[in-house]
């Protein structure tokens, strides 16, 4: 199915393969709901000068998606993933920055309780392109994560920037977290950075919160919410933001 996005807000569920596109110099927002069991591909084409704020809200039982985003000249993609699923997730995201001056900001917040395979890749194919990726993951009981974060600046990507950071918080009972941050740089006139941390709850942070009266469980809940809530930072729609924060609250109360 092919859909030309309306200007302004759009919302629908991902149930099957879909292709989305924008018109030149337009602004759009899109909430993509992902529920039940989904296996689908998603192709999104951003026309010259268009902007898309997109939030994928995953509460599915099982998910397998292949996503390809094509960014033409001066287009801007703000892409956020909120994964509050307790099912298995496999997601491959390829963002191709084809046009000069195109930009992508990707942020993901993922609660991991089963096998989760994620791959996020930016490929900078034109000059003056910018990519910024921030991944936050919380591993809970039986969680098993493999996450590739890749920034590739090709020979044609002079004066481009690609940045990424990934933070993984391991709670008791999680199995394995494997994070592979890659920067593949084929042009010398670029800026690139990556940061990755994985570890357990910081004892000093816990002590600090407890010293103000919070129990250990309350302190952990507060910090997990903080991790996951970071995904809402790029969401301008206040009511959507509140809804997501409410869902995060509810989910965290369930699991911690």
């Amino acid at each position, binding site marked *: 199915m092919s859909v030309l996005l309306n200007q302004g807000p759009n919302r629908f569920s991902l149930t099957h393969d879909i292709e989305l596109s924008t018109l030149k110099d337009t602004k759009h927002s899109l909430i993509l709901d992902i529920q039940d069991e989904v296996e689908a591909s998603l192709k999104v084409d951003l026309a010259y000068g268009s902007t898309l704020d997109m939030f994928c809200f995953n509460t599915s039982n099982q998910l397998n998606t292949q996503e390809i985003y094509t960014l033409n000249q001066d287009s801007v993609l703000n892409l956020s993933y909120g994964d509050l699923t307790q099912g298995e997730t496999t997601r491959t995201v390829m963002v191709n920055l084809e046009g000069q001056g195109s930009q992508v900001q990707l942020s993901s917040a993922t609660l991991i309780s089963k096998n989760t395979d994620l791959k996020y890749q930016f490929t900078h194919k034109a000059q003056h392109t910018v990519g910024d990726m921030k991944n936050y993951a919380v591993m809970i009981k039986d969680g098993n994560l493999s996450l590739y974060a890749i920034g590739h600046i090709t020979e044609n990507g002079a004066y481009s920037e690609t940045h990424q950071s990934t933070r993984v918080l391991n709670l008791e009972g999680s199995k394995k977290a494997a994070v592979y941050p890659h920067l593949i740089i084929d042009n010398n006139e670029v800026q690139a950075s990556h940061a990755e*941390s*994985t570890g357990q709850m910081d004892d000093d942070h816990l*002590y*600090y919160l407890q010293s103000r009266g919070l129990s250990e469980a*309350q302190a952990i809940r507060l*910090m997990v919410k*903080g991790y996951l809530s970071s995904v809402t930072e790029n969401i301008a729609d206040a009511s959507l933001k509140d809804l997501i924060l409410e869902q995060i609250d509810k989910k965290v109360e369930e699991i911690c």
Partner: protein
Amino acid sequence: MSTLNIKNLHVEIEGKEILKGVDLEVNSQEIHALMGPNGNGKSTLLAAIMGHPKYVITQGEITFDGQNVIEMPVNERSKIGLFLGMQYPMEVAGVTNSDFLKAALNSRRTSPIPLFTFIRTLEKAVNMLQMKSDLAHRYVNEGFSGGEKKRNEILQMILLEPKIAMLDEIDSGLDVDAMKVVASAILEQAAKTQMGLIIVSHYERFYQLVPVTHVHVILDGKIVLSGNQDLVNRIDTEGYDWIAQAYGVQIVKEIKTRPVTATSLGTCAVKERGME
């Protein structure tokens, strides 16, 4: 009227004895200055009272209004009315001050604090400490200057209304004007709630702004000398050597160690094909 009572307290950290038998009693409305060179046990005493897990109490008693504090978890110590304003407040990324403070206030209430009451209380404290109005939405201490972090500690003290507050070098990182603001807030809170205070500072100036009722000098893990405000003035001009000589105590020289921070793992600048 509340009383914090410490008897013959011995504390170790990583197998090394830091406190070697401290006795101290602090009551409501009293302001105690705790002085001594770095590395002699001042911060250890405050952290042990608050229950920092790295500090192991090997002997002695800590009671608060007759209750055994040593057996309490950290959060219970806070809820009975103890507060520690830390020398190095933690930065907690992702957790907003608003969520943190609400959770802290609610932990000592039977029903959640009404939103309007919370906002009004927070605004009042923010104004009193001349802090930025966006404090509530910022992450706890993240990106704060040294002075902002210290003001944030005092803000928490004001909101939580402890019965005994311990302030560990709360004046470090504050410029002269900020020190006056903080001192004034502490005095106002003390007058309002009758809380007792234990203040660690190296500066006579701070003790002029917050006049103390008792002064104690810790050397080599023991309180070797107690007195009044005059003792602060003498230490300011003569240092600690005369006390060490008079009481036959060796001053412990502080060994600076680099704090262990979170480990970062990852691969750097991989130059390879085949990842696409």
